[in-house]
């Protein structure tokens, strides 16, 4: 009962603080503080409700239990992180995005192919590509190579479509200017069209970050060596060790956010001239 009251009190307090924050002048500090308060409130309510209603840890462990488990099994989490994120997701991401980028630049010279490839690429990007996972696991074996292959397939088409679109983003006036400078195809590509395509390219890269992580984890459900985040999640669910599952989720969320954040930072540095980056 006390814990339930604690949960309600935490909710009320958090809401009150946020209302106060929202009333004041908007500033950088405030816009950071509000979501923080909301998150802390959420965790407090979670802790209170789980303890108050005495929900079994098999169903939903408390945040403190998850944190304890996280600290206790750092070595396991690190092994899984290396296997899934560094070997599977990252290598696949680099290969897939790199290949898509190069192919997009190549087909950019053929408008016919481009017109045909854009609708097809858009179509494939909307497909449940993750279904390719069992096939690729069959082709490339259980280790990280098959996970990287799944990631390649998943990030390829969003990246391709975005890059092709980006390469068309220059205006006729700008291209004409390059022609008056007697710029060669390559000079136009490197000095005008690729820089102009960068906002689109980074859009594709950012979409790819989450896809890469999901692809690498889900591919492990179809077979993996005895390490990896997907493997750990599916086996821990079987052992009802949900605190370990949640610890893996925390790792995945942190890795995903860091990956996305890193891409945003690079984007900010590369496309500093774009209106969406200047405020």
């Amino acid at each position, binding site marked *: 009962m006390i814990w339930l009251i604690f949960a309600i009190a935490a909710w009320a307090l958090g809401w009150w603080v946020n209302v106060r924050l*929202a009333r004041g002048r908007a500033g950088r500090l405030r816009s950071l503080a509000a979501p923080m308060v909301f998150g802390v409130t959420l965790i407090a309510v979670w802790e209170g409700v789980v303890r108050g209603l005495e929900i079994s840890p098999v169903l939903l462990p408390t945040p403190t239990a998850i944190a304890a488990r996280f600290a206790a099994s750092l070595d396991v989490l690190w092994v899984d992180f290396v296997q899934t994120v560094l070997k599977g997701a990252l290598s696949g991401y680099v290969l897939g995005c790199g290949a898509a980028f190069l192919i997009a630049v190549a087909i950019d010279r053929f408008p016919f192919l481009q017109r045909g490839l854009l609708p097809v690429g858009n179509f494939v990007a*909307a497909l449940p590509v993750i279904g390719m996972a069992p096939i690729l696991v069959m082709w490339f074996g259980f280790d990280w190579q098959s996970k990287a292959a799944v990631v390649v397939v998943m990030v390829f088409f969003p990246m391709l479509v975005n890059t092709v679109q980006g390469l068309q983003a220059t205006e006729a006036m700008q291209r004409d200017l390059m022609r008056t400078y007697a710029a060669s195809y390559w000079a136009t590509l490197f000095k005008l069209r690729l820089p102009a395509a960068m906002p689109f390219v980074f859009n594709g890269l950012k979409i790819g970050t989450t896809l890469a992580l*999901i692809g690498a984890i889900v591919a492990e459900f179809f077979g993996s060596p005895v390490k990896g985040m997907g493997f750990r999640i599916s086996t821990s669910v079987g052992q009802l060790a949900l605190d370990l*599952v949640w610890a893996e989720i925390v790792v995945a969320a942190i890795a995903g956010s860091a990956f996305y954040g890193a891409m945003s930072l690079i984007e900010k540095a590369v496309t500093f001239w774009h209106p969406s980056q200047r405020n």
Partner: protein
Amino acid sequence: MRQSFWPVVTVVGLLLVIWYAAAVWLNSDWTYDKATRSGETVTATSLVADTWAQKKPKLPAPHQVAAEIWETTVLKNITSKRSLVYHSWVTLSATLLGFGLGTVLGTLLAVGIVFNRTMDMSVMPWVIASQTIPILAIAPMIIVVLNAVGISGLLPKAMISMYLSFFPVVVGMVKGLRSPDQMQLDQMRTWHASASQTFWRLRLPASMPYFFTSLKIAMAASLVGAIVGELPTGAVAGLGARLLAGSYYGQTIQIWSALIMAAALAAALVGMIGLVQRVTLKRMGMAQ
């Protein structure tokens, strides 16, 4: 539309050619293996004929997949467990339920975010953060936990679909509800319109193009969610279960047919939303 018809046909044709060639390449090991054991010599024609007609090929040829789809959709009874139509329906119902729930939740959240500054400041960042959790990765846990609470069948899968589909709706609707510019809002004020009138007559109609665009993304995400949600249920029913069963027993043709079916389903659903979008926007006078 018309001018991109032939390019698309060319690209699709090219992909089919690559597919057939890859089938020969990937399946040739098995053919050579078989030939050396039986002491036959492999000619070019027999190689091609064999690689395109194996029972458990590494990569089935397109016509094999087409034949399998024809066999499991048209020739099988719809209620049969071997019918692909039955499995598609299982997946489709979870997809649609999750999509509906996600759309409602997303729209409500967006309205709250647009009208309540506190919600805007505190909830919006978490809506974005919620998507950094790879929900597909924890689908098994959600299914198992909900099963333990006594929720089973359609709903757990629909929950995963909902989690994936509410996000694009929130983001799109917030953008859409904020799309009327200052001039239009001022016009509403000169008419002394109340907040609800501004909402129903200006903000909501203005958000429609954004709404439909997000619905398309949400639908595609929802289907993926339903398929992945079917993986841990022990391969009972649904397209995801077909994928898993196929990968257990090495039935590549079955995997590919389920995959193509899922693709067709996604295309049909997204196409349907596109149709509704075109009709609605035309009637509202917003068609481009």
